[in-house]
């Protein structure tokens, strides 16, 4: 039985959209990126090769490139910790919940190289080996960056930890 393009879209679009949204903070832009990503599959110059890797790895890699291309075009991307989620934007209203707001801010403070690994590992539950394939990095580097990202977040979000845990950490 053939797996149709619509089936592939339905399987991956939600996760790709979430990933793009957490990096750009924009619903519209993320929607555009996901569509452009699938469009890229059909172009003659498409580099997807099913014998070399999974479609999921290809799609996340493509979304990642499109996100950074756009952020770079908007001159919002720097090597310094950036704040790609505009909390004053309408999209920012999603983060009304105080803890959600704080998490969004904290994640956006992470360096780009750690941020995307955290998003893929935590929010998309992607195995480290697959993240390594998406980012074209050794698995060990992915693991250490993820540990650094989580350590930073643990520190920045400490006030949201249950009181007992705060006591334990002292």
């Amino acid at each position, binding site marked *: 039985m053939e797996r149709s393009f619509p089936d592939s879209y339905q399987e991956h679009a939600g996760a790709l*959209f979430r990933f793009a949204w957490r990096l750009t903070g924009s619903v519209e832009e993320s929607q555009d990126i996901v569509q452009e990503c699938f469009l890229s599959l059909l172009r003659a110059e498409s580099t997807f090769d099913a014998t070399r890797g999974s479609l999921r790895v290809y799609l996340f890699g493509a979304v990642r490139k499109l996100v950074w291309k756009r952020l770079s075009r908007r001159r919002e991307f720097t090597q310094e910790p950036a704040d790609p989620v505009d909390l004053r934007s309408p999209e920012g209203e999603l983060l009304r919940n105080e803890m959600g707001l704080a998490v969004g801010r904290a994640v956006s403070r992470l360096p780009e190289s750690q941020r995307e690994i955290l998003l893929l590992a935590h929010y998309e539950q992607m195995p480290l080996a697959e993240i390594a394939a998406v980012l074209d990095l050794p698995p060990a580097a992915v693991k250490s960056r993820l540990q650094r990202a989580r350590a930073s977040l643990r520190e920045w979000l400490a006030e949201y930890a249950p009181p007992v845990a705060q006591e334990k950490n002292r």
Partner: protein
Amino acid sequence: MTDLELDRILDSWVAPGAPPMQFAAPRRRIRRPLVLLALAAALVAVAVGASLATWASLGSETARWDESTWVRRTRRVEPALAWVRWKPLATSGQHLAGGGLGGTVRLLNRWTGREYIYQWSAERLTSGQYRFASESPRFSAVAGPGDTIDVPIFESGQERVYERIELAARPLGLEPDPVVQQFTLSSPQLYVNGAKVLDSDGVQRLDAPLLAIDIPGKGRIQVSLAQRANFVANGSARANRISFEHDGSRYEIRCEGAAATMDGPVFTRFDENVRPAGYGLQGDGRN
């Protein structure tokens, strides 16, 4: 802070729903090992010009044109695969001041960068049917409840984009979309400040990513589960209820069963350009 505690804190950052998109392809489950080969085969099939026997939707909305005519308009792309070339820019539809109805559909062909604008009008005939017409593309048809008409928007080779207009003597729902979060209302009732103002009025089931609530003499409130331009977060969908506040009044939709595909915040936008005569509740597929 333990790993589990950190995970729970991170989980509080919730992303909005995925983009509205639906395909008319049959839902299938296939075994993982077949996925790559099958996808490759599908892409190869496209490359040699084979068509898929399915269509994709570029947006759909429902409306009540008069006391006995309900309408569902859906922009369709064939084959479904060609959906990636198209982006819906805007759709509108409204009762016009001088009688009749009219609206506009704007689509962008991402492949060529060309924008397609289609303007339509519908005039009610004494027979109870409607004369539906558009200037560009030039099209005209007479239809009533039970009829379906297809208005061509674009055609090239095997690729076809058109608007399907279905008229019925009963309320029509939107096709459920498993990708996007949507409202799933069964026998919905509308309450304002605790008082019931609208019964389910024959609506058994309404599945839509966007709701339109008509407030007599005031305007229309659009309600969404996802953030959209000019929408503000001011309510929630919980279990069998959707509630929010607007202009000092508390609105609540109560229904049988879950009100949405998942609990979460709701976002609203007020449109004062619409002047409804009575309370109304309908699905709206505008993106």
